[in-house]
Each structure stands twice: as C-alpha cells, then as structure tokens.
C-alpha cells in the first residue's frame, strides 16, 4: 500500500510538471505587469488578446492558412496511408519488406537535412517556395505515422469480410465502402488527427520549403518567442497550442462517438 502511495506521488509530480508551464502560459497571456520577484501578476489586461484578435498581426489569416494546410495534409496522408496499408496488410508480393522501410524513410532522415534536401528536389520540379511544395513536404512528414496507424487497423480487420461481401455479390468498391470503411473509421480519424497536428506544428520544413512565401501560425510564432514581449509571445503560443488541442479533442470525441455507435446492436 505504501508503495502505491509512492507511485501516486510520483505520478502527481509528473502531472504537476506537465501542467505547470501550461498554467504559466495562461497567466502570462493575461498579465499587464508581472515584475520580479512577484509570484503572480500585479495587474491584468486584455492588451495581448486584443492584439491577437484584432491587431495588425491578427491571428485569423494565419489560423486559416495553417488549418487549411493541416486539413489537406491530413486528408492526403490518410488517403496514401490507407492505400499503402491495404497493400502491406492484405497482399503478398516481391519486395514487401521494402514497404516498411519506405514508410519509415522520412523519419530516418534528420529533419533539417530532409527539409533542405526536399527544397532542392522541389526546385528541380518547380514546386519550391509554393504552397503545393509545402503541402507535399507536410504529407511526407505525416505519412510514417498514418501508415503505421492504418496498417495496424487494416491488418487487424483482415480481408475476410470483404471476401464474404464478394461471395454475396458485392463488387470490390462496394465491398470496401460498405464493409471495411466503417470498421476502419476510428483508425482513419486518428491518422487524420495525428497528421493534422504534425502539419500544424511544422516549423523548419515550412520555413525552408516555403522559402518565406508560405506563412503559417507555427512560422509566425517563433519571432514572438525570440522577441522580448513575454505576454505577446504567450498569447500567440496559447492560441496556437489551444487550437491544436481543440482539433485533437474534436477527433478524439468523433472516434469515441463512432465506436459507441458501433457497439449498438
């Protein structure tokens, strides 16, 4: 029993360490003055919130472009992930072990080298410094995770149900959409959530491949952190993290709902 108490204290400490900086971010966002050595701000203000929502550098256009980019990257990574997962989980063919390696490749290349190299490769294709190029590199970054998640669920489901549907006369397309897709939906949603968050948080790849022409929230955030205004940096970081977590929570809810729906007879 004493041991369990010790473990609980350890977990409590871990939770405290995770939550403390998040709480600090909220306090700094709303602080008007918080000078040394006070433990709490002396006065509060809505200055940073106004700046964030209505200022010259307001968040809306950035939020829009980042969310659109993240949504597209999530959809594409999940679609490619689904195709790859089907091949890897349901088919046997020569060269199959290479698929695993190919799926992991973007993770094995150091991120900075990957970004610079992709920029060079896209220069040859005429896609450097464009939105399409940035989208492509975001999809590539998210793909290893999407493939891993979707291969797991596709392999777990197997091809048996679709074969039964085929025996009963359904074509391959109808077999997939009517039989497999509903079962794969939770995996598809977690792949989309993961890919969205990854795209949303990309800094170096967007910086290099976008060549400064593609503006996202993650890109705009860094100068604020390098600048001296802690309150302004905090409010942008809060908006950034909050919106990412919001999307994550939305997907988690959808997954939960879908699974509950499936439980009903």
């Amino acid at each position, binding site marked *: 029993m004493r041991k369990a108490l010790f*473990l609980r204290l350890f977990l409590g400490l871990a939770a405290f360490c995770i939550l403390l900086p998040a709480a600090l971010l909220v306090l700094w966002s709303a602080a008007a003055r918080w000078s040394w050595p006070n433990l709490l701000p002396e006065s509060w203000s809505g200055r940073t919130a106004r700046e964030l929502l209505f200022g010259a550098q307001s968040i809306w256009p950035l939020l829009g472009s980042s969310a659109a980019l993240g949504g597209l990257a999530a959809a594409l990574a999940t679609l490619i992930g689904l195709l790859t997962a089907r091949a890897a989980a349901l088919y046997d063919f020569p060269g199959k072990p290479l698929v695993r390696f190919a799926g992991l*490749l973007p993770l094995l290349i150091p*991120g*900075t*080298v990957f970004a*610079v*190299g992709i920029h060079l490769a896209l220069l040859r294709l005429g896609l450097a410094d464009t939105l399409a190029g940035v989208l492509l590199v975001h999809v590539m970054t998210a793909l290893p995770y999407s493939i891993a998640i979707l291969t797991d669920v596709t392999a777990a489901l197997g091809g048996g149900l679709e074969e039964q549907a085929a025996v009963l006369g359904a074509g391959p397309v109808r077999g997939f959409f009517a039989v497999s897709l509903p079962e794969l939906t939770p995996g598809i949603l977690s792949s989309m959530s993961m890919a969205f968050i990854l795209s949303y948080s990309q800094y170096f790849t967007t910086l290099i491949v976008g060549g400064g022409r593609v503006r996202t929230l993650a890109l705009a955030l860094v100068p604020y952190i390098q600048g001296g205004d802690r309150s302004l940096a*905090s409010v942008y*970081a809060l908006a950034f993290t909050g919106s990412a977590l919001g999307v994550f929570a939305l997907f988690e809810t959808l997954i939960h709902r879908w699974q509950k729906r499936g439980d009903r007879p």
Partner: protein
Amino acid sequence: MRKKRTAYLLLLPLMGMTALALLACGSVLTQSLGVVPAFGLTEPTLDYYREALADPAFFSALGVSLRVALLSALAAAVLGTALCAALVRVGPGPMGLLIRLPILVPHAVTALFAILLLSQTGLLARWAWALGVISEPGEFPQLLFTPGYGGTILAYLWKEIPFVAYFTLALMAGVSCTLGEAAENLGASPLRAFLTVTLPLSLPAISQAFLIIFLFAFGGYELPLLLGATLPKALPVYAHLAYMHPDLRQRPAAMALYGLILLLSAAMATLYGLLTRHLLRRVEGGQ
C-alpha cells in the same frame, strides 16, 4: 492470392514519395560534393568535407549536439520508463491522457515554456526568492543561452519523458498483466517481478524510443536555436547559418555540413541497431 499488380498500384503514391525523399538526400549529397551545374561546378570533390572537418567550430557544434542528444535521451529513457511503470502499476486513468499533451505541444512552444520557467527572472527563480534561497535574479543558475545547453536539455526532457512512457505503455502493460503477474503469483515481490520480467521484456520498445528521441535531438533545430548559446551552436543551427550565407557559391560548404549530419545519424543508427540487436537477443535468450 490477391493480384500483385493491384498491390503495386496501391503503392504508387508511396513510391513517388519515397523517390522524392531519396532524391532529397541525393541532392544534398551531390551538392556537398561540389556538383552544382547551375553555378558551373561539375567536378566532384571532397574539399568541402575537408574544409568542414578542418574547422574547430564544426567539432564544437558536433560536441554540443551529441551532448544534448545523449544526455536528454538517456535521462528521458530512464525517467520515461519509470513513468510508464508507475502508469502500468497504478492504472493509466486521466494521467494516460495527460502524458499525450507534451507530445502534442510543438517545440517552439516548449522553448517558450522553458523561458517562462527557467530564466533568471522565471517562475522557478521567483520561487527560490520566496523561499529565501536567492536574493536577486543573478543568483539563480543560468540555464538558458549558455554553452552548457542546460535549458535545451530540460526542454527536450519535458517532451521526451512522456513520449518514452507513451511509446512503451502498450507493450509494458501487456507484459505486466501476463508474465509480470505470473511472476508475482509465483512469489516474486512486485519490484523483483518488474526488474527481472517486465522491464527486460519491455526493452525493445524502450530501446526504440531511445533511438527515436536521440536522433531527433541530434538533428533538432528549434530548441537549440531558441534556448541555446550564441557560441558554440548546435550542429543543425550551425549548418543553417552556413545555408543562409548570402553568397550562393558557399552552398556546397553548407551542404557538406548537412551531409555530415545525415551520414553521422545513419552511422549512429546502424551502430545502435547492431549493438541493441545483440544485447536484446542476449536478454531474451536469458529468460
């Protein structure tokens, strides 16, 4: 058996992406050998690598990156395993969700956390003042923007400890509720069951997590940029500085640095793979 041709059709997009990733590495390596036809450079040479390796600044940057990556990954592997074990023992509950938060928070925001918390006027310094440990900000140990990269390492730990726990959780929970409990039923104490059964069998996940976070920290840009010293720089920050050189003829020099990061990462991953495969086989054989 289903048709092979369908499988290859399904794999076409992945093949395209893989070709692009290989082209990316190839382009970096080609330019690092001084082959940039656009600038009229067509003769391959190792001069840029020689130049990079002759510069002491390269080795101090390499030292910083190795130190940050090794210290943060080692500490995160140990503490993350402990966190995972505690979660398995007590049951995940809300904490199982909470450990996903640092994984989702981007590195730039983690850097801001470190500034708000660890700077000499940060919250920890204020707590130290309130407790009477220090009387002015200058007495609080400087962790940020110093050549020791303490703040960078701590910021990595904030993200990586939960990552190791999350990455290992499924395997360790599975092992613990089958073989770990069997050992306890046979009379082993919980600690002994953990150390002799659950931990060794969870090592494959822990060792994979270690490699992932080590390589990430070795090649990571944002945290050492935002929290590190002006000199020495971390290797990716040093390489980016060379990449941003206004004279485009300096590009091959920058690409040699990226080439070195790529080759060093690949070499370390291969070495680690060989080492752990041998060790893990011995652990498994000993069971």
